[in-house]
């Protein structure tokens, strides 16, 4: 019966392929860290990537953050006021954003906007032999093209997550205090009491840094490793977005279970 056996065999091949690719990516990561010196000695390379990755993502981050915060305000109030705890809206909005929604949603947006752009850039450079030309001109393409994009992403991510969270809290305030009429004093004071800098804000920042590393690594790797054809590049871009999303969600679970074990 070749039907189910073939399926099992294909599944096995996919798993071994995936593990091989993971090892390959790990080696690539090591190589990139090795050649990262230029990203900082020639800072303008990295600054350029912070512009294209971070600054150009500002619009979508700010708008999305605002909307997410506003929705949190609406939904949150609707549920809280059933228990007479409408005043706790600030706490709900702030904790949801700083701990989870800020890093995760900003990470997903960053992956789809900036990550896919980086993969496309590097992939197209590969397809049009620009990478090979650079290599032949004795310029290390990993140091010159890949590493600055990686570090640009790692630096941009936490900043974008913080901006997203701040905009979200503003959106929550806008809906809760300005439109619905929750007491402004209670909104902020309860929030300040409940949100701990080290526990909530710093953990959120740590998460966004980890997500930044994961997304940037996936983006540059998929671009550098793609088949150098038009179809290869488009497939690599899809893989970047999908893998980044899965990585963010999986890492979020791992980090959350470490960080927020619940005070014993």
């Amino acid at each position, binding site marked *: 019966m070749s039907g189910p056996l073939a399926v099992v065999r294909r599944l096995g091949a996919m798993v071994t392929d995936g593990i091989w690719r993971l090892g390959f990516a790990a080696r690539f990561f090591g190589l990139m860290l090795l050649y990262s010196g230029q990203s900082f000695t020639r800072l*303008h390379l990295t*600054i*350029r990537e*912070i*512009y294209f990755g*971070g*600054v150009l993502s*500002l619009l979508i981050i700010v708008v999305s953050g605002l909307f997410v915060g506003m929705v949190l305000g609406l939904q949150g109030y609707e549920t809280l006021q059933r228990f007479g705890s409408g005043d706790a809206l600030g706490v709900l909005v*702030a904790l949801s954003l*700083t701990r989870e929604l800020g890093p995760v949603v900003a990470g997903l947006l960053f992956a789809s906007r900036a990550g896919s752009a980086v993969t496309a850039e590097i992939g197209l450079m590969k397809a049009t032999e620009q990478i090979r030309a650079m290599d032949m001109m004795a310029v290390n393409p990993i140091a010159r093209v890949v590493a600055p994009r990686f570090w640009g992403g790692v630096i*941009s991510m*936490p*900043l*974008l997550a*913080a*901006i997203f*969270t*701040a905009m979200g*809290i503003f959106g929550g305030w806008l809906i809760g205090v300005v439109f619905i009429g929750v007491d402004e004093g209670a909104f*902020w004071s309860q*929030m*300040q*009491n409940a*949100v*701990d*800098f*080290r*526990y*909530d*804000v710093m953990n*959120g*920042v740590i998460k966004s840094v980890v997500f930044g590393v994961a997304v940037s690594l996936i983006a540059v790797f998929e671009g550098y490793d793609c088949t150098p054809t038009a179809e290869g590049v488009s497939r690599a871009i899809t893989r970047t977005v999908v893998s980044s999303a899965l990585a963010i969600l999986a890492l979020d679970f791992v980090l959350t279970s470490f960080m927020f074990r619940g*005070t*014993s």
Partner: protein
Amino acid sequence: MSRTTLDLWVGFFVVIGMAALLFLSFRVGNLAGTSFTDTYVVKAQFDNIGGLKVRAPVKSAGVVVGRVGSISFDTHSYRAEVVFTIGTGFEFPRDTIASILTSGLLGEQYIGLDPGGDIEMLESGDSLQITQSAVVLEKLIGQFMFDRAATPSE
């Protein structure tokens, strides 16, 4: 896009990113408030800590003066040992009483300090002698029913 314009935008981006982080730390979180840089350590033993958790506040007269550091079980005295820190600026007499109180009706529990009259102040590592445990709801109800049963109803 010339280099200088690029640098400008990136600088702008980093500035608002940092501003957002500062906003989150100070206005949203409690960075300015309760993070004491210099603290000293005090211990106390309780019969029952109730729902007291690590990092719960230590208050006196309603103002936060410290934080609970760790909670453990003492196998010699069969009581709960709570180690907490108090900000260096707040000195308490050695006969201060520590009680476990609840904020609000069903809120979280915290340690309340009632200063005594001793001339000597607590040093780092000292233990408080007099403590009042948390109120356990079952015992309270049991006590109430016992009192009711003891008092003949008119």
